[in-house]
């Protein structure tokens, strides 16, 4: 097939991916609201279709451009959307067996793809010489993978904060109630209901502790990958620009993001910073991640401005 045909295939697959993921997102939210098993299965099926379509779009794009398809923001966003979906399907639903956060994961993927098509839509094109290195594959793959993992971790962190707030309020409400008389009315013990695991479910989000652990796992997975990506970037920069570090805006922001997530990991090991405080740091990290990913390319000029 020719370049234009592959481009057409890639674009069609992109549209399929976007709409299946929107479907998956809607079904995911519906499952959260109504807890009907079929909705979860539908969401999962649409998610898998979306992931497959993303893959077709990525491959088509690569064949059209005649190179690995991560050379500009459109392509990064496409790969990132794909990895977010795969990460959700494999790690959240597969490994952790958490099915109620699907809507949020897919929403993240949908937003990523929507950003790609709204702001970064460029045709497949060759690269400038500085990008022509095998380090591009390694560095960019690591950065996108890390961004997807950290992004998913942060989405789950947001849910954790919501759930944690709700649990705290619910506990306070239960504590305020008169304890029910138990076998003669002994009230010496704590009321049995004042334990998060026995609280009535609200919309079916998993317990805050589960969400917290899940978010931590994503970030603890994404952080070394990010570190690896930054190191690869430095090795590449040493060859391409003659220095391993030069405080270029993209470098600076990847460092800022790294520092914030390092802070998050340390905070979790520090008494008094665990829980909501560490989660708040993760959210700051999420903002920094988005700035690193989007804002630096859109608004701050530097050596990484390759897609405007």
């Amino acid at each position, binding site marked *: 097939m020719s370049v234009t045909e592959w481009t057409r295939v890639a674009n069609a697959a992109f549209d399929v991916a976007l709409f299946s993921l929107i479907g998956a997102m809607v079904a995911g939210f519906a499952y959260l609201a109504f807890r009907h098993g079929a909705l979860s299965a539908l969401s999962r099926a649409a998610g898998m279709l979306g992931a497959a379509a993303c893959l077709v779009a990525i491959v088509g794009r690569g064949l059209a451009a005649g190179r690995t398809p991560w050379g500009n923001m459109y392509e990064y966003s496409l790969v990132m959307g794909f990895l977010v979906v795969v990460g959700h399907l494999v790690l959240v639903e597969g490994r952790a067996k958490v099915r109620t956060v699907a809507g949020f994961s897919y929403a993240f993927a949908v937003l990523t793809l929507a950003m790609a098509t709204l702001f970064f839509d460029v045709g497949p*094109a*060759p690269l*400038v*010489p*500085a990008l*022509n*290195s095998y*380090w591009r594959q390694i560095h960019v793959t690591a950065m996108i993978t890390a961004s997807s993992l950290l992004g998913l971790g942060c989405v789950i962190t947001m849910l954790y904060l919501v759930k944690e707030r709700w649990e705290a309020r619910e506990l306070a409400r239960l504590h305020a109630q008169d304890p029910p008389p138990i076998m003669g009315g002994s009230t010496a013990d704590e009321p049995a209901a004042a334990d998060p695991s026995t609280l009535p479910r609200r919309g079916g989000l998993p317990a805050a502790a589960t969400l917290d652990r899940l978010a931590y796992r994503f970030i*603890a997975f994404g*952080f*070394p990958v990010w*570190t*690896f990506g930054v*190191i690869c970037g*430095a*090795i*590449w920069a*040493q*060859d*391409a*620009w*003659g*220095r*391993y570090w*030069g*405080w*270029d*805006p993209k470098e*600076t*922001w990847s*460092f*800022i993001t790294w*520092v*914030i997530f*390092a*802070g998050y*990991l*340390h*905070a979790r*090991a*520090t008494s*008094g*910073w665990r829980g909501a405080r560490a989660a708040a740091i993760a959210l700051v990290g999420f903002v*920094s991640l988005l700035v690193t990913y989007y804002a*630096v390319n859109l608004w*701050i*000029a*530097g050596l990484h401005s390759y897609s405007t």
Partner: protein
Amino acid sequence: MTSPRPTYRQSVALVWRTLRSMRTALILLLMLALASVAGSLIPQLPNSPGAVRQFLADHALLGRFYLRAGLFDVFGSWWFVLITTLLFVSLVACLVPRTRGSIRAIRQRPVQARELDAFPSFRELAVGPPPEAAAEAARRVLRRRGFRVAREGTSVAADKGLLREVGSLAFHWAFILLLAGVIVGKGTGYAGLAVLYEGETWIDAQANYDGQVRTGRFFGGDFSGLRLTLVDYADTFRTTGQPMDFRSTVEVADLQGRPLGTEVIRVNHPYRRGDLRVFQFGFGWAATAEVARGGEVIAGSDPIELDQDPAPEGVSQLAMPWRGTIKLPGFEPQMAVDLQLWPDGRALLALIDDPSAPPSAMLQEFQPIARYRVWQGPLSDLSTHTLDTRFLESVPGASGLIGGGESHDLLEGATGVPASWPADLTIRFADLREYSVLQVTRDRGVPVVLLAAILILVGLLPALYSSRRKLWVHAAPGERGTTLKVGGFALQRRERFDEEFERVVADLVRACGSRDAEPVRSR
């Protein structure tokens, strides 16, 4: 009641304790992040001096404040250095006792415990073999599972996951190594730009650099003296004008002039010799425009390296002509000839046709054409790159277009030519070739920094994924054979430890070889 004034020792201890606390480290980390944010949003002198000048012109007051506060060079400012230093001091303060503790823990054999049923994981089994043999079997089981084991009679203590702390320490110490690599590398190194036109030989020495050489604080002036001769510079572009490749073919010779071979330097493929690296950085056109008087060349016999002005808004950089100046300070009044070059003459025609249209691939040499203009008046400097026209006047009519190899009467048809100037001046566009800009860098810290980066990564993995866990087994004569008590806990990843504990118990049952071994009591 007032508290007694703290003694000097107490104050030092307090400062030390504060520095050691994780809270301080966290706050310093976040401050570092915040400072970096400022560094990315405000234009930085080392990265974009032009943007800083623009900022100072646009926002005079704010710009002055930024300048004072060092915000135009955040990463070189005293307060950034202060935050980094404090962070590193805090790091060392935290690492020293932790390292000592870790060494102690590694040296020490696992310590026996007395009451096992108080641990989060606990199981009691009845097994066949006598206590001594059962304990030995337990030792072997735990050993096989990678635990460090100590047996004292019928008691076994085991632990695993010391790698977590070792990895974490390696990760953190690696930053000290990283800092050392950066300081040594940047401190003893230098970096600068070498500009060579085709055929030119350039020697690595302070005076030969184009513009400023960045030298480290501890740099002893020992430039390498390497000789580079640019044999050929070639670039290829796509039809859209997008660059594909830049390559300089360079003959290298050492200080004594002994040839070291021919090297091709391309983007992403620098030339390396020892600590010295030479990178492809830029390129441009070098024109030879000879000014002659009565057939004798009096100026411009060497190629001059032409520059491009930054393109104004809406104009492609590719459309900009290449500029340079020939200066004749010997005349009274002094003379300057300003040159504008289009390596592809068709680009100029297209530009005249439609000034806003970007040229397509008119970047290679094809019927090159130059526009010249003669100026008179006092010259501010003798640079071929700049022309300060504040004190100059252009000579009316003394201008024209000149093609490659052509020769013109410089002042033909001009009016108002100073009477003191000779009349028989000619200009000849003798030669056009390309020049290459090479970045020469010496950084001895690179291998150290790379090693530190690898250590950071290698240390990070066990620091995040390994977990510290301890197990004990007690064997004692019971009602039915031997009673085996197993207890333990994990400091991290507790769910995973629960599974591991079950497997250890299953292994123990199997190892004790009695089919009737069964859990007696579990919690």
